[in-house]
């Protein structure tokens, strides 16, 4: 319950900004911020006034590499950084621009495939980029993904490959991509079928700790059946 009484409201907002509230109470405030102008003003009041206490924390230099990681995270995903995987896929799927650029890369790939080989191919690219960055081929013998543009994960991070099958509730990890930019799977994952989408996210070294993408999705591509 967010109180109406101004004094109570201000005290609660102050506790929220200090961070002493428990998780449920903090979430209740966050949920109310958009609609409750008085609460929002009270929170801003405390954010601005208590900021005056921040000189009590002595400044210190962040370790090297922090900026590089920030730059990688925002550059890899200018428009959709950190947006949910599904959103970026919807965005991507609704784009018709992908077809032409993909076709050239696919044609080359299909041409060099062994005849008994892959049934599916995908070209992965960064959102709103035309340049293909990865190509995946998949079939009875498994899956092969490799970098075509020499993409490298940020320092201390790794790329992880995901498959999203149509109608599946969540992405399925296909594994962390080795630093040489080449990932091979000996069997065909069940999540690979017509209409599936492949996605690559930036994760901690060793892969997502949660089994779901935790970092930004930086490349996506739809699997298409190859004849």
């Amino acid at each position, binding site marked *: 319950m967010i109180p109406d009484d101004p*004094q109570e409201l*201000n*005290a609660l907002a*102050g*506790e*929220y*900004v*200090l*961070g*002493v509230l*428990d*998780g449920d109470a*903090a979430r209740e*405030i*966050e949920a109310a*911020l*958009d609609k409750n*102008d008085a609460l*929002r*003003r009270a*929170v*801003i*009041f*405390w*954010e*601005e*006034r*208590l*900021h*005056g*206490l*921040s*000189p*009590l*924390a*002595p*400044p*210190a*230099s*962040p*370790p090297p590499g*922090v*900026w590089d*990681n*920030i*730059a990688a*995270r*925002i*550059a890899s995903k200018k428009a959709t*950084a*950190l947006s949910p995987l599904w959103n970026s896929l919807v965005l991507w799927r609704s784009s018709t621009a992908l077809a032409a650029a993909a076709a050239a890369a696919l044609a080359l790939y299909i041409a060099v495939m062994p005849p008994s080989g892959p049934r599916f191919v995908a070209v992965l690219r960064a959102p709103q980029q035309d340049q293909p960055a990865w190509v995946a081929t998949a079939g009875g013998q498994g899956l092969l993904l490799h970098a075509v543009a020499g993409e490298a994960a940020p320092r201390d991070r790794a790329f992880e490959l995901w498959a999203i099958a149509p109608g599946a509730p969540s992405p399925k990890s296909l594994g962390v991509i080795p630093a040489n930019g080449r990932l091979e799977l000996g069997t065909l994952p069940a999540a690979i079928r017509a209409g599936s989408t492949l996605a690559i996210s930036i994760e901690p070294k060793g892969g997502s700790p949660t089994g779901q993408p935790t970092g930004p999705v930086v490349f996506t591509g739809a699997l298409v059946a190859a004849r």
Partner: protein
Amino acid sequence: MKIRSISSSAAPIAARASMDKAAESGHRGGAKGGVAGLMDKPTASLSSVRDLIEAVQGGSQAALKRLYEIESRRLFGIALRILRRPELAAEAVQDAFVQVWQRAASFSPERGDAAAWLTAIVRYRALDMIRKSGREILSDDPTLGDVAEAPDIVERLDLKLAQGALRRCLGELDDNQRRCIVLAFVEGLTHAEIAERLPAPLGSVKSWVRRGLIALRSCLEP
């Protein structure tokens, strides 16, 4: 990732002063049309945090980098004080700057203090992380000696804080209220953690924080 409030509506009085300052510096292009112009200027010439955030709103990654150069030591210090471990503090700063990049558009010019906005983003991120990872594990590091630092911080208020309303009003609180508020803000402690640190009964701590905030508010904005 959950992003805490950092709401962006009015704080008109405080805003006035810093906007005037920005106008004097000559970098501020005036409303939205100026933002694009800002991006074309050498970013190094943008000095105020507010100018830089406005350039970031316009999509300038160079401005974000400059903001990082200017503010990262301060923000890392804040996160480190809460999280205690440099690698966690680095992650908090990283996440915070990515949020700044994404949420720059939600920074409204009515907000008084651009640096306070950054402080809030970093603190909320660090608080989320500490609540998730659990402080018990973190406070084991003997080199940090955090118990010994507690009274120290509060005693140094007069040395560290700029002269002004906040320092004066904190001075008017009773010792327990002041200590609780400062510990909560700087160290990111919960009620229970403050109670353990002081030590004092939980109920007393809750009431000190609350009464301290009420007194602080009426002193700061009578």
